[in-house]
């Protein structure tokens, strides 16, 4: 590879990785058996919800347990509009986020204004999530506790989004995942992303240069709600059902957070990585225990406990840290001057060299020996 091509590849690392995931995932979806398809649908569904949580938590540190509600909004929008007006679920993919944002508005008003940090927001949004089930049951046209079943036309066309083959849903969810991760990557470096970081890290300083704190916090919350809704649309179509239990049941409630935090908080890839690993693991444990219904939630819980106690950065975060450590800190031409400058604070000059010598570095003695 020429230098120029290498530079381009480094620069567009994110989009290229996304493209690779899309292609590989697409091929895998067509090639695997039905059980794996079920796992993949679940994993990709959780990862969208997790991404929505992660986006909000990563951008502003708002710990929202209400994301399942916005996913449920997606499911209900899709099936209700399809059954009543015959509107295609494909259109609902775009209508549902708007409705989710409208519903999120009052919640956002409470959650973003409340003082007291992550814990209080978490409790308040947990109340919202708990209130959602009785509210849904109370609204008669939405089918009460049983929920709504999608009408099945005699000859479902593409527009009905009712595929007999689960692999098609894997592909849809995969595309949504890739689009949302891409959106987040763009957002981080966009004007809004920079505003948001400013609001998170230094609210007073941001306000003094004219960033509207309250408005930014509110809109990030709404955007996060919009990101969650498409997951519900596709998952409801996959089940041909939308019900309080499907989206807001006791075990469904916390899975998004677990997936996001285990994968790596505040990282675009986090939820996808965490989701694939956890869903696969919990399926394995469930099989191994002979199909005990509680095995899968317990696996989630145990993984979460391990993570909360040992790797608070999650898998992606820990991986980044390992890469960071292994990366040679000194470029051959600059020598020890750069070593002193680029080392992490407190490491002191020569720390990189010491680490290399400590045996992490069979890699490159020539770099340290300048």
């Amino acid at each position, binding site marked *: 590879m020429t230098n120029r091509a290498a530079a381009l590849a480094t620069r567009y690392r994110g989009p290229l990785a996304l493209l690779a995931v899309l292609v590989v995932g697409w091929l895998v979806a067509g090639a695997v058996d039905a059980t794996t398809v079920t796992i993949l649908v679940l994993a990709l569904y959780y990862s969208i919800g997790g991404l929505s949580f992660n986006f909000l938590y990563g951008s502003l540190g708002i*710990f929202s347990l209400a994301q399942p509600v916005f996913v449920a909004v997606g499911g209900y929008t899709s099936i209700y509009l399809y059954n009543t007006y015959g509107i295609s679920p494909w259109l609902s993919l775009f209508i549902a986020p708007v409705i989710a944002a409208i519903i999120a508005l*009052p919640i956002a008003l409470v959650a973003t204004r*409340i003082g*007291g940090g992550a*814990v209080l927001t978490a409790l308040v949004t*947990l109340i919202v999530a708990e209130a959602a089930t009785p509210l849904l049951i109370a609204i008669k046209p939405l089918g009460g506790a049983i929920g709504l079943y999608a009408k099945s036309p005699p000859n479902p066309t593409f527009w009905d989004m009712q595929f007999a083959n689960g692999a098609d849903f894997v592909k849809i969810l995969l595309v949504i995942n890739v689009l949302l991760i891409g959106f987040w990557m763009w957002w981080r470096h966009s004007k809004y992303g920079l505003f948001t970081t400013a609001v998170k890290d230094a609210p007073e300083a941001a306000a003094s240069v004219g960033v509207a704190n309250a408005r930014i916090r509110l809109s990030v919350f709404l955007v996060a709600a919009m990101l969650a809704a498409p997951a519900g649309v596709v998952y409801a179509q996959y089940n041909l059902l939308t019900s309080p239990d499907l989206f807001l049941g*006791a075990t469904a409630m916390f899975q998004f957070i677990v997936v996001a935090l285990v994968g790596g908080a505040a990282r675009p890839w986090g939820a996808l990585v965490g989701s694939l690993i956890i869903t696969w693991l919990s399926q394995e444990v469930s099989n191994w225990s002979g199909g005990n219904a*509680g095995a899968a939630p317990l696996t989630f819980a145990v993984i979460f406990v391990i*993570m909360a106690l040992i790797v608070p950065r999650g898998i992606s975060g820990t991986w980044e840290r390992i890469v960071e450590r292994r990366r040679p800190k000194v470029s051959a031409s600059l020598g020890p001057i750069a070593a002193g400058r680029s080392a992490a604070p407190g490491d002191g000059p020569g720390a990189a060299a010491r680490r290399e010598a400590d045996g992490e570095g069979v890699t490159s003695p020539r770099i340290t020996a300048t």
Partner: protein
Amino acid sequence: MYFAQLLILGLLAGAVLSLVAIGFTLVIGVGKIANFAHGAFVAGGMYLGYEAYVAWHISPYLTLLPALAFFALVGWAVAEVFEQRGRKVGEVGELLVGLALLLLINGLLEVAFTDNPRSLTGVNIGSLSVTGISIPWTELVAAIFTFAVAGGLHVLVRTSRWGRAMRATAEDPVVAGLQGIRVPIVQRMAVTLSIVVAGLAGVIIAPFTVLTPSAGTTFLISAFAVVVLGGIGSTAGAVLAGLAIGIIDSMAAGYLSSYWTTLAPLLIILGYLLIRPNRVTT
């Protein structure tokens, strides 16, 4: 008549809410930790009472003593973990530990007892008849227990040396530390005490409550609602707010429709937070 019945039902339900919230207000006020697993310990206590009765035919009231020792041990261990993570990762670390414990207890109960609701039907110690309204003694005992615990804690916090240390820590941990109060120990005691109260509450309400593994989340939310209404750190506030929410619940269910029982307190608390979002900063 109907009103009086609803009122008594509400008061009894409210006493249970208060009991769960007393520990929670303590752990937020003194321990400075919003323990997300608080409700899960109530659920744990419920299943402990259930299992003791079903497996060994021990009355839940006799289970209280071993349960006290058990939850004291568990509580101290949990407090230790909170302390460690809190020091290293800060507030979010504590939040994660609480959530993880909530999920873990939930998952363990689900594996051990399945998801199906259970109830402990065998415990029947008669009922008291007040002007034609019959009140089961099991519920009365729970209400009396609530007032005993609340009263005991109140006296303890107001008069004892240890209580003064707790109040000082609640007000300002740093200054309390400067005065020679061993703040980490006091905070750990508060967390332990709250978990003990939660566990015992679970045991004592087991005879008249529907047992589900996920009850922990419901208890957490009602405790939070009660604490916000009653004011953080106040035992008397927790009791009054608990009784008030219990009565509102029962009236809403009696005059409107049953799903209002769960919905009414949640809406009250959300509306309250919308109007006064700064009320609950610890």
